[in-house]
């Protein structure tokens, strides 16, 4: 039996505008997706902002009712058997909201233990174990309002594990963390999977998905556009090469010329501090460097390099449909 199943899961939102003449617009956030996560698997849901990741997760953790379709957690329907689903699932929020700021970390955990029905005897053992696991031991009596973003994130993880759920759902748990904090958190997530928990994770970071996940589903505009192991997804772009060009002050017109250039299959731009990194995908063996530099014209160019495609390139290719 799959730990998590989604069948033709769909969710729409209604948005109203106008004051006198109210107009209602329906937004399709998730458009009938299907996926299954096996017990003990670490499954990643990848997608750009607004792709439908959080909506999907909120339907699975019973915070939203699907417009149509069905979802089950350990065989329990998320709509009709919501309370049983909540007992078997731990939901870890992303970001620094979602905790009682005026209470200490310890009081937050004690309160949520009660809400999850953890017996007092178990609480006494479980809370110190989790504080140790997430590295908050010694800081647990401080008020949450004084915690750093990373500490709040670690508190969310401890809270999600209080009732020792077999399924853990994490919504961008490393977002906003410093590199050391994020690395420690990834280690904790890997430990959870090793301990036999089923983990569903959403993330923006490809290397995180690559390093942690057994399987990944890429979601774009509410639809799953690809699903498989990280290496299987990388094979989508295995026949391509990637040219990286550092450009200073890249105008839209130059970018359009690059996009229209023969042989180019995909173009993306990463904004860095003073420079834009242009990532151009093209079929392997095709020498495009001179042609691309010509398209850039007078634009000041820094480092130029060609490399093998990564999971991130596969992701860009999948979400842009190129």
């Amino acid at each position, binding site marked *: 039996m799959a730990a998590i199943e989604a069948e033709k899961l769909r969710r729409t939102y209604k948005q109203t505008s106008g004051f006198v003449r109210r107009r209602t617009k329906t937004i399709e956030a998730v458009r009938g997706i299907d996926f299954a996560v096996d017990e003990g698997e670490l499954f990643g849901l990848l997608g750009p902002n607004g792709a439908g990741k959080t909506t999907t997760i909120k339907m699975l953790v*019973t915070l939203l009712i699907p417009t149509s379709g069905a979802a089950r957690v350990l065989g329990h329907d998320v709509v009709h058997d919501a309370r049983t689903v909540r007992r078997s699932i731990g939901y870890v929020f992303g970001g620094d909201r979602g905790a009682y700021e005026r209470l200490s970390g310890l009081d937050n955990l*004690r309160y949520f233990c009660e809400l999850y029905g953890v017996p007092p005897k178990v609480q006494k053992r479980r809370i110190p174990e989790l504080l140790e696991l997430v590295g908050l031991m010694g800081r647990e009596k401080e008020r949450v309002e004084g915690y750093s973003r990373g500490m709040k994130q670690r508190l969310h993880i401890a809270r999600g594990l209080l009732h020792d759920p077999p399924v853990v759902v994490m919504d961008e748990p490393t977002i906003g963390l410093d590199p050391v904090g994020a690395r420690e958190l990834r280690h904790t997530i890997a430990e959870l999977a090793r301990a036999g928990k089923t983990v569903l994770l959403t993330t923006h970071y490809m290397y995180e998905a690559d390093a942690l996940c057994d399987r990944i589903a890429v979601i774009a505009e509410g639809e799953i556009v690809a699903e498989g192991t990280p290496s299987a997804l990388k094979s989508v772009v295995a026949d391509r090469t990637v040219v990286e060009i550092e450009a200073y002050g890249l105008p839209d017109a130059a970018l359009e010329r690059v996009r229209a250039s023969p042989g180019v299959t995909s173009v993306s731009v990463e904004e860095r501090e003073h420079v834009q990194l242009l990532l151009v995908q093209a079929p392997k063996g095709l020498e495009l460097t001179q042609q691309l530099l010509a398209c850039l014209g007078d634009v000041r160019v820094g480092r130029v390099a060609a490399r093998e495609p990564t999971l991130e390139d596969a992701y860009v290719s999948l979400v842009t449909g190129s």
Partner: protein
Amino acid sequence: MKALRLVAIGWVFQLKMLSRSAFDGLLGILWPLFFATTAFFMFRTSHDPRALLYAALGSSVMGIWSSTSVAASSALQRERWYGTLEAIVGTPAHFSLVLIPITLAMSTVGIYSMAATLLWGRFLFGIGVHIVHPLLFAVAVPATVLAIGLLGFLLSVTVVRYRTAWALGNALEYPVWLVCGFLVPLSLFPGWVRPISWALAPTWGVRAIRQAALGGAPQIPVAACIGLAALYGIAGALLVDTVLRSARKSATLSLT
């Protein structure tokens, strides 16, 4: 047993959170004293010590109501701002057991307003507090606190679904002062107001407290107050599942 424990612990943590804001604390201390002073100046002209005690008791229940009606609705709104509303809805606990401690904590704070009002009246205005039925007074006060807490719970259920419903608590603050007869006898109002007053537990609560203090038969108002409290509790618990389902359907839980 588990449910009682959850309510008790929730109540302790809510009080703990309330005690953490010095500004809220200061307002909570001063506000009932303003009510009391206004009431004492109004009733002092009658030169009747019973009228002054009548006003003192009424204004003390005003304090309990105000701290519950306004604060309970805003407490739920605060859950939205903190992002904790989704976290608590996502737990297996029945949501009414999460909401009740919030409003009960607010009305517990209101007990302070009763004590402060009576002491203020005693020391600044020389109003003697002679309780005719002390035992019934000791029953009437917690019954009123419980009833007002559960009425606050019923109000706060609407905030779960409608994010601007916290304004309802503010909007009802002053009308309830009037229609429940906190300061002005109900007999002064038109007949059509009475059924509204009877449906509101604070009417019976303040009547029970007054009859226990000034003399009379407070048993019936105490029973009415407890009965209405039970009705509010049952209505809120039944309504909360429907409201929560509607909020999950219309995706309003995460909205601030």
